[in-house]
């Protein structure tokens, strides 16, 4: 007799793509706003970017219910941190908190593919990229989600920086200026929209600098 398998899965994939690029004094975090399930579009106007702290912004694709739960957990932990330490969490600190939060659900993972962007203690841009169970790495740029395999090779071509593992150690930050990086992000999403059915509708871009956060929205193909 064949084994009975569950007809119901606790997970679903709502698609979407997230990108982040770190610069010398800025960080650009971008994501499309399409939320899908199977071949249907649930909404064209869903933000995948969430501000956790003044200098740390999270963008996640995958299963948005898990993403929402994850954002809530991190926001509440950040609030506790602020009460205990009388200051905001730095981006590297938030990066490790996210890693631990993800790993604590190692046996029932958050189906969330995250990119954390922000400014470190010295005001330099930093981007952290994660897998679903919490392994993370500080990088100069990253793409996650359904369009990531289309976007990453192009970013590698344009932004490829010397590996942080090389000796002598070299910086992973891109030498691009902020308007150039924003332009690159728009180009990259326009291309990904052409070839990925789960990416499109609108592009939301958040630019983090020492003096504050700016948000920009651009239309993408709706088909």
């Amino acid at each position, binding site marked *: 007799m064949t*084994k009975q*398998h*569950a007809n119901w*899965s*606790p*997970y679903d994939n709502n698609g979407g793509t997230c990108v982040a690029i770190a610069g010398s004094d800025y960080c650009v975090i971008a994501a499309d706003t399409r939320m899908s399930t199977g071949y249907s579009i649930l909404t064209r106007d869903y933000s995948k970017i969430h501000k956790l702290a003044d200098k740390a912004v999270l963008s996640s694709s995958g299963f948005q219910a898990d993403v929402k739960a994850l954002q809530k*957990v991190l926001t*509440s*932990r950040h609030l*506790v941190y602020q009460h*205990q330490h009388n200051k905001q969490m730095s981006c590297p600190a938030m990066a490790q908190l996210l*890693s*631990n*939060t*993800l*790993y*604590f*659900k*190692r*046996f*029932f*993972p958050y*189906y969330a593919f995250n990119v954390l962007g922000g400014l470190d203690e010295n005001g330099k841009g930093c981007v952290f*990229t994660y*897998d*679903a*169970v*919490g*392994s*993370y*790495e500080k*990088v100069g740029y990253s793409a996650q989600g359904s369009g990531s*395999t289309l976007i990453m090779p192009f970013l590698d071509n344009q932004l490829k920086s010397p*590996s*942080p*593992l*090389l*000796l002598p150690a070299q910086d992973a930050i891109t030498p691009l200026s902020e308007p150039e990086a924003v332009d690159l992000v728009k180009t990259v999403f326009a291309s990904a929209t052409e070839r990925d059915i789960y990416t499109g509708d609108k592009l939301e871009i958040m630019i983090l600098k020492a003096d504050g956060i700016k948000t920009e929205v651009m239309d993408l193909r709706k088909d």
Partner: protein
Amino acid sequence: MKLDTSGFETSMPTIGFGSSNDMLDGFSTVPSFDLPRTTDFDGFQKEAVQMVKPAKGTTTLAFIFKEGVMVAADSRASMGGYISSQSVKKIIEINPYMLGTMAGGAADCQFWHRNLGIKCRLHELANKRRISVSGASKLLANMLYSYRGMGLSVGTMIAGWDETGPGLYYVDNEGGRLKGDRFSVGSGSPYAYGVLDSGYKFDMSVEEASELARRSIYHATFRDGASGGVASVYHVGPNGWTKLSGDDVGELHYHYYPVPPAIAEQVMEEAAAE
């Protein structure tokens, strides 16, 4: 020894998120994990692992020689056929005199090595002296044994220098722990072993040993598709570890096998001379 089964409990973790007191308590005992409520735990884990597709495929190696321990690794992380990163730190600095290597699930290795570092530090504070390599590897092995069968994927080597001299242990997710002089772990390990075993001598200088380690990693990355990126080499001596080299394996190829200058012109010249 009482087996650590707290990982199987489904009760809310006592450390919890946001509990202000005794944050450290959560790390001196086993953190209890959320478990899915399903009748088919193994099947669920199989699917979850498929979904997560943790980074596998790697080459790491370590060996003891006259001057201490040499540790080397590549830096590629793959998710199925996609290279998710070429710059993963697979040699983890547990503390200034102990290193751990990463093979298997990236998150599993990162998390448990960080946890081990915390435990080693707590041991230092409680006992007023450094933990031995044997002790540290045992802590890790016992922890992994208590999660045996739950799908963790960890194949690590703990290398360090303690009061008894250089130490090297292999620890894996089955809870196995082996003391040894030479280990290589990962999908590229057969290739690395070939080069390492044929070139190994106990009486080597640091330069010779680091070159052997680097070459072994290079050859493994050449033949194994799941290994690549940057070959990092570390040395653990009586005063702790130092990073000796980090070379891109693509460039290393031309270093070992330089392209001879264009032969075509030479042939033409010879013909004209006749």
